[in-house]
């Protein structure tokens, strides 16, 4: 158990912290790309279905299980799932709830530092794409390669001190500072400022984008309205494609931060009578506001008006770090301010997420080994930095990052969410789970969710997971055979997983010696 009792300061505090965890780069960069490539407005049909049948119910289950586990004295995923899942098997599987945030943090903090570096480049006029608009795209790509070292391994760690390393160190220091300060004085206080600030930045950029009109006289067809149409005009034929449904479910799923081990920790600090239903819905809907309301209206139209249809299609990194700098360059002098605002907003989105990943790992170390925060933070910080250095060094084509993202940041999350879904509905029991969710609840979960949680959500999740595996596993397994960096990165993951299993086992011994009901045999006595 952790020696220092941690608690949220307010209802709004925990909501903004969970929302901050959920809102990330994907809201602004991944969602728009996924929508455009999978039917535009029609994408919202499978998207909202997945939100209602998958994302929100799993979120409610996580909030509920976490609060229950917290009442039994557990704040780590192994502890919580061991209690809820009644035994060692679930406790062991709960190790995923530490592995996922820990490994994801190793590369996420790096991406976060790229956002900070881009913000500084814009803020201090160092984002120079040249004078010739025809060269903007190539110059933008060159800047990205220089920042990330994606053309060659080790380039950012060779010779002198590379700016990328400096920004990474600053970003790590900021993260560890807020984690050090703890839940209420650190994470909550920061999120209370960062979330509204993020919204203000998004509104500023949105206002600029929606007032762009038709900026290029040579291309009168590239208007903001046409850009919004490119994003939102429905192509219903895509609804007959399983890939569309897979993409929508995947997007909802990753966007809401379920299956990350984050909510399992954050909500464990709630008290018995603290609401989880309204809080869970509020956090989820806040995420959707940033995704649909901002991401859905900014990114694609901005890219379209300057670059046309072909320029407006891309993945997260392509859109965020290659295309948008070109867009801001086309905006003229004011584009620099908008670029700075945009990347500052992305940095805030990223850091509220990375804090949420560090916290559950710190809580696990404290709880399993009986350490105070002043010990857990250096340990967790050290491990994350080592992993991050691995990703920084093996930067060619971002293979290390991509490998960790696939096996842990994607597959691992699917696995954990499936485990949680089954634990809640089938092991803990859906009736018991819903009764537990309704303790202190300020709104009621609709009765149909008894059926949804027990049958629809697990099946929907499994179908999506299997579809995801069929679509992606062969390629990544081939990648392991062909690329030694991918292979070694997987070994790093397996090593970290083994360490977590050992620490978890040590923790179980401590918890049993302390008389804690780690297998959930008794009801909470609060």
């Amino acid at each position, binding site marked *: 158990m952790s020696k220092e009792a941690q608690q*949220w300061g307010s*209802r709004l505090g925990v909501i903004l912290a969970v929302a901050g965890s959920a809102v990330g780069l994907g809201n602004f960069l991944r969602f728009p790309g996924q929508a455009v490539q999978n039917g535009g407005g029609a994408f919202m049909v499978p998207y909202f279905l997945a939100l209602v049948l998958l994302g929100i119910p799993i979120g409610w289950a996580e909030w509920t299980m976490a609060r229950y586990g917290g009442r039994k004295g557990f704040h780590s995923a192994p502890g919580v799932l061991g209690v809820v899942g009644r035994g060692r098997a679930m406790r062991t599987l709960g190790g995923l709830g530490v592995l996922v945030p820990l490994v994801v943090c190793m590369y996420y903090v790096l991406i976060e530092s790229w956002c900070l570096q881009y913000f500084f480049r814009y803020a201090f006029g160092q984002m120079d794409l040249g004078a010739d608009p025809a060269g903007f795209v190539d110059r933008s790509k060159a800047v990205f390669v220089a920042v990330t070292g994606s053309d060659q391994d080790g380039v950012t760690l060779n010779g002198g001190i590379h700016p990328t390393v400096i920004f990474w160190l600053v970003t790590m220091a900021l993260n560890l500072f807020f984690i050090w300060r703890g839940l209420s004085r650190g994470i909550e206080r920061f999120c209370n400022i960062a979330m509204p600030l993020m919204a203000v930045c998004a509104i500023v950029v949105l206002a600029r984008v929606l007032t762009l009109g038709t900026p290029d006289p040579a291309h009168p067809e590239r208007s903001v309205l046409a850009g919004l149409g490119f994003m939102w005009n429905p192509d219903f034929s895509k609804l007959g494609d399983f890939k569309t449904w897979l993409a929508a479910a995947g997007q909802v799923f990753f966007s809401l931060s379920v299956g990350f081990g984050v909510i399992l920790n954050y909500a464990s600090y709630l008290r018995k009578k603290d609401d989880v239903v309204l809080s869970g819905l509020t956090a989820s809907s806040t995420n959707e506001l940033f995704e649909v309301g901002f991401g859905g209206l900014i990114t694609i139209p901005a890219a379209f008006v300057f670059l046309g249809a072909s320029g407006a299609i891309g993945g997260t990194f392509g859109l965020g770090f290659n295309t948008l700098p070109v867009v801001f360059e086309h905006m003229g002098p004011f584009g620099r301010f908008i670029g700075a605002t945009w990347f500052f907003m992305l940095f805030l989105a990223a850091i509220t997420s990375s804090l949420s990943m560090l916290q559950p790992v710190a809580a696990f170390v404290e709880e399993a080994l009986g350490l105070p925060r002043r010990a857990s933070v250096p340990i967790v910080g050290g491990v994350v930095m080592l992993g991050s250095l691995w990703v920084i060094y093996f930067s060619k084509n971002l293979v290390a990052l991509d490998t960790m993202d696939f096996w842990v940041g994607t597959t691992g999350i699917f696995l954990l969410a499936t485990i949680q879904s089954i634990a809640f509905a089938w092991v803990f029991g859906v009736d018991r789970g819903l009764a537990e969710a309704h303790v202190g609840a300020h709104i009621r979960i609709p009765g149909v969710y008894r059926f949804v949680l027990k049958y629809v959500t697990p099946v929907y999740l499994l179908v999506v997971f299997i579809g995801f595996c069929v679509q992606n596993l062969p390629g990544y397994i081939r990648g392991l055979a062909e690329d030694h960096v991918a292979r070694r990165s997987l070994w790093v993951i397996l090593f970290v997983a083994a360490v977590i299993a050992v620490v978890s086992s040590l923790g179980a011994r401590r918890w049993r010696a302390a008389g804690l009901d780690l297998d959930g045999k008794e009801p909470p006595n609060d």
Partner: protein
Amino acid sequence: MTLGGWVFMIGSVLGVLAVVVYCYWKVLTLPKDGP
């Protein structure tokens, strides 16, 4: 932009906004007793 585009865009954005406003109105008007 087609009619369908307007419908999906306005519907999605306003739908999300409505839920957000409802949730925060409920959260902020509850008695202050912590989470």
